[in-house]
């Protein structure tokens, strides 16, 4: 019988892909994600830390999201090729 991935498998693959992708982020991006999500730092404070506007912080977070999304999809596509 063919192997059919479940939702859990699918999520595990995405998480694994994201883990690899997160590791590839540069230090600045990692620092921003840590502030934003692990420490729940308000955007105003990140803006002050980076010396940019609040709006620009959202722009940077958007860029990081985009990079991770692209990386995750690429990793999944490569990983799903027949060996």
């Amino acid at each position, binding site marked *: 019988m063919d192997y*059919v*991935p*479940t*939702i*859990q*498998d*699918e*999520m*595990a693959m*995405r*998480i*694994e892909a*994201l*883990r690899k992708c*997160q590791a590839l982020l540069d230090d600045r991006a990692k620092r921003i*994600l*840590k*502030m934003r*999500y*692990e*420490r*729940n*730092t*308000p*955007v*105003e*404070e990140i803006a002050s830390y980076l010396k940019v506007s609040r*709006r620009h912080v*959202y*722009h940077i*977070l*958007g*860029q990081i*999201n*985009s990079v*991770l*999304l*692209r990386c*995750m*999809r*690429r990793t999944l596509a490569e990983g799903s090729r027949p060996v």
Partner: protein
Amino acid sequence: MSTPPFPDMDELLQRLLDDQLEPDEMQRLAKAIREDPRVRDYYIDSLLVSAVIRRSSQVTGELSKSDLIRALSGGENRPSLKHGVRHLRSIAAILILGTLAVASLTLFRHRPQGPAVGTLAGVYEAQWRGAHPLPGEPLRRGVYDLRDGLAKMELGQGTSLLLEAPCHVELKGVDEVTLTKGTLAVVVPPQARGFRVRTPTALITDLGTEFGVIARPNGRTEAHVLKGRVSIALAADRAGQATSRIVNEGLAVVVDAAGQKIQGGLAARADLFLLLLPSVGQPSNPAGQLNLADIVGGGNGRGTGTWERGIDLGTGRAFKGPATTIRRARRNEFRPSPQFRGVDGVFVPNGALGPVVISSIGLTFAECPRTIGSYYGGPANSGKFFDIPSRQTHTARLHGLSFGTSAHPALNLHPNAGITFDLGQIRQDNPDIRIDRFTAVCGIPKDLPQPQFSAADVWVLLDGVVRLHLNYPAERNVVEKIDIPIPAGTRFLTLVTTCSGRADYSWIFFGDPFLQ
């Protein structure tokens, strides 16, 4: 399709997650999602990425498969991949569209608009959801949702409103505000007599006064008259009749959650309301300060510690909180904590069991009162408390401000507990920082699930000598600023919390606990 379907979509999504979209942007995004499948796919994948990062960061600090799978997939069924992905996307789409619908309704129906009815007079670390006015800016009719901190509004006729987060109000005009949820203090000058505060269950009308109103999430309303008097009536649309009463200075009334009964004869609690904005809080761990909460979280005082981590009073070892079990110590025993750099050890204080040893060199706490020796986990790098009956975790707030964040760290010290810091070791590890003060704010959150069972005490000792003793009675909310000079050469700083009886809901924490 890996690039965003339109250039600023990534930024819009990030602001949407923070509820910071303007109505026109929300409309644009909603329209694109409705009409363009590429936008929809990108949207769903982006939110999944965000959810995965957010969830993993909050749970473990790094990605944890099991947590994420539980959080994001749910259910026990194991359907096929196609069905699974479709199912997953359907759930995500429903959640997202639901969020959009709710956000759109909120934004479009109640977005402040029209002529100004007042100005934002000042704020204390305010964080808004939706409309986010700045001090000095006009306030218009509509909804203002204060998520954190305090905000002072001055309305056209001179009425002053002080909102304490979380607080959701709708300004109806210069003479009326609706308080949907939260705590509001009102000062009404003579020319604005008749000012009204509506809640989901009551209508409070000023009769020349200062008063405070609390609208609980379950619908219960409390009105406390601090000066003058008010009239209170049941919300007309529920009662259908004019049930009202006059409340005089120093008294309080409660309208039940169903909006059907007014209970009077209660004493007003002035301690539950702020009429003035406090001075601006301390900045987040700036140079020259060491964060004691971070040290309790296993860090170096500069932000390397772990959130929700603490020191078990029973073992002196690390635990991951918040604590969920009450234990009892049968004897006084000092537990060294070698795992934590800068912490000498921990103990459960109980003056009834003989000398209370508070350090590795045998210093004792001679003034320690009798306690029942119960404890709840131990000191923790956390602003969160777990309520056993409801099985819910609460975030600690003082003056509307959430603690236990990078901006405002919190050292949670639920009685009966003691922790001794080794200042000698901390100085040795941080030669660039001169340690000559301990500063913090200390208190018990006032929005507890239940009132604290008994009075609590906080003690601060330097080398075994009591330098500060604070009392927290059960019937009065107190927030104290702590600023204790530390003479050069002092080796041990000890923080102790005790309770004269059962310690339930004596959720004491030190906010911004810094050595500087």
